[in-house]
């Protein structure tokens, strides 16, 4: 298949995509002196937004200050995170997919098709997600992939904890019956 034909396929083998992400991280380590990561950007956003209304508070909070004071907020990782949106959008368009989702099928089966309820749950899911990521000092990109490939003890600890609790939470939310709805 031609390279262009590959770009038009809606789905790639997960192994091909995985190899791509692995090779991408070689490039970030060697040519950019960076490791793939995303969750620090959420701290930069929070710090910047809080800074607009309560600058002294941000400067007085050691955790925010070390991320946003005296260094650029829009830097390598921030640009990366913004472009995740456009990379995925482009991949979807090239694949010819028309996908819009307000309430996922599995969620609707278990909790009903209210958009408002789903949006609220997604918001609080996001709160929990980033709170955990910052306590662990990384997320699925910064810890699981970048740290996993460096064999970091911190990252493998995170990876195992994250999968164990994701699995438990998913079965608590949806039960074994949920497997028939994904």
């Amino acid at each position, binding site marked *: 298949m031609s390279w262009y034909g590959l770009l038009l396929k809606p789905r790639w083998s997960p192994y091909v995509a995985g190899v791509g992400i692995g090779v991408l991280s070689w490039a970030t380590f060697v040519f950019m002196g960076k490791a793939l990561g995303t969750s620090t950007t959420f701290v930069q956003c929070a710090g910047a937004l809080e800074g607009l209304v309560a600058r002294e508070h941000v400067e007085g909070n050691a955790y925010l200050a070390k991320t946003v004071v005296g260094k650029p907020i829009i830097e390598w990782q921030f640009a990366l995170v913004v472009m995740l949106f456009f990379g995925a959008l482009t991949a979807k368009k090239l694949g010819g997919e028309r996908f819009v989702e307000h309430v996922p099928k599995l969620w609707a089966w278990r909790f009903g098709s209210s958009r408002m309820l789903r949006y609220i749950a997604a*918001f609080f899911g996001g709160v929990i997600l980033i709170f955990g990521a910052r306590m662990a000092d990384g997320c699925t990109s910064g810890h699981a992939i970048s740290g996993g490939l460096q064999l970091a003890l911190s990252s493998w600890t995170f990876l195992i904890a994250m999968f164990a609790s994701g699995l438990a939470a998913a079965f608590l939310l949806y039960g074994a019956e949920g497997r028939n709805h994904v």
Partner: protein
Amino acid sequence: MFDPIFADPQTLALGALTGFIFGFLLQKSGVTRFNVILGQFLLKDFTVIKVMGTAIVVGAIGIYGMRAMGIDFPMHIKNATLLGNAIGGLIFGVGMAVLGYCPGTAVAAAGDGSRHAIFGILGGIAGAGLYAEAHPWVQQKILGVSNLEKATLATQMGLSPWWIIALLAVAAAVGFYMLERKTGTPPRAAH
């Protein structure tokens, strides 16, 4: 703060290029879909593990291989504040099961057409602000408990990293072979 706001253009361009490719790969692999992530946690669809496992093994071979060949570049190993890594990971897993995405896939999912992911991203920003307030307490009670700093699986076991990489590669190869034989490649039609 806000001075400077922007990093230099080259840094931004490299970050943007990396993010574009990363987002592209995530979407093509299917992990920007709620159903695929929940399918993994419900042990129905193993796409997430296949993508992550392959990325980790390929990444490790390249990074450790290039260093062995004498190419010099910094590593980015995060501190093993083990209780924080573990409790943070447990909290993170709950958030991921509720939202249906991790931070990076949430942003990519928004680009892929998931409207509810946008609320997850907003929640994430709030979560970051909340954590910043809790950090002094967390640092004292959780992060300070055991810190093995830049430990890796290799240094911890006193082995060459290549033993660990070989073990991971074999485990991935055998695991993926068995998964494919058992389930085959599930139909991944666009829906």
